[in-house]
C-alpha cells in the first residue's frame, strides 16, 4: 500500500473537482485515416482523498508519451476519486473503440493503490483499491482480471501496462 504523505491537508472540494473524464477522442477509432499504427494511451489516476501524486503522474506520463509522438487525440484520461462502476464504464468505452482494431498499440498506466484478494500468495488475485476505507465495499475495488476482461484487447494489439499501485 502506498505511503500516505502526512503533510497533505485534506481538501475534499479540491478532490471532487479533480474528477476529470477527458474524452479527447472524437470518434470510435484513432488515426484510422492516416495509415499509421492505431494506438491509444489510457492514463488512469485513482487518488485517495487529499493525495496529489497520482494526478501528477498522469500529467507527466502524458508529456512523456507526447514526446514519443502520441497525438493529443490518442489519449483517454480518467482521474479523480473513482468507483468500480466508473472505472469499468471507462474501460468498456475503450473496448468499444479498440474492439475492431486489426492491430495497434494500447498503453494503460494506473496510478493509485493496490490490493489483493486472498490470504496466500498462491491464490492471490491482485486488484485496485479505490478508497482508504477500512472495510472497502465491492464498489470500491476492482480486480486486475476484471480490468482485462472489460478491455478485451484484441490479440494483435500490443498492450503496454504500467501499474503504479
Amino acid at each position: 500500500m502506498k505511503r500516505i504523505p502526512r503533510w497533505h491537508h485534506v481538501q475534499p472540494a479540491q478532490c471532487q473537482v479533480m474528477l476529470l473524464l477527458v474524452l479527447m477522442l472524437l470518434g470510435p477509432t484513432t488515426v484510422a485515416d492516416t495509415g499509421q499504427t492505431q494506438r491509444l494511451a489510457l492514463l488512469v489516476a485513482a487518488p485517495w482523498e487529499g493525495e496529489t501524486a497520482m494526478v501528477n503522474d498522469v500529467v507527466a506520463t502524458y508529456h512523456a508519451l507526447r514526446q514519443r509522438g502520441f497525438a493529443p487525440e490518442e489519449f483517454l484520461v480518467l482521474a479523480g476519486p473513482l468507483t468500480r462502476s466508473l472505472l469499468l464504464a471507462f474501460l468498456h468505452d475503450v473496448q468499444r473503440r479498440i474492439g475492431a482494431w486489426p492491430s495497434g498499440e494500447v498503453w494503460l498506466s494506473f496510478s493509485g493503490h493496490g490490493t489483493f484478494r486472498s490470504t496466500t500468495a498462491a491464490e492471490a488475485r491482485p486488484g485496485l483499491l479505490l478508497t482508504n476505507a477500512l472495510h472497502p465495499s465491492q464498489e470500491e475495488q476492482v480486480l486486475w482480471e476484471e480490468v482485462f476482461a472489460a478491455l478485451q484487447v484484441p490479440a494483435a494489439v500490443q498492450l503496454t501496462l504500467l501499474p503504479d499501485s
Partner: protein
Amino acid sequence: MALVMKAEPGAELACRARNARFEHQGHPQERGVISYYAGQTLAQATTFAAWLQRIEALSSADLQAGRLSWFDQPSLQLLGPATARLPGEPVKVGVEQR
C-alpha cells in the same frame, strides 16, 4: 507487456508501490515512484529492456546521491518479450548541431 514490481520471496502479498517527493521545476512534487522513473526514462528508450535499464540506472544514481531512500527504490521486472519496441518513437538526443 507489463513493467511491474518484483515480489520478494515471502512478501508476495505486500503492497510495494510508494510515493515520494521529487524535484519538479524547482519545487518538490509528490509522485508515484514507479511512475516517476518510468516517465523520466520513457522518452528516449527504444525497447522495454532498454527502458528498464534506464529506470534502474537513474534510480540507482538517485539513491547514491541521496535523492531517493533505499526503502523507496523500485525493483521492477518485465513481463513479456524484453526486446519488443516501446510504443511510439524514441526521442533522439546527442545529435550534433551544425
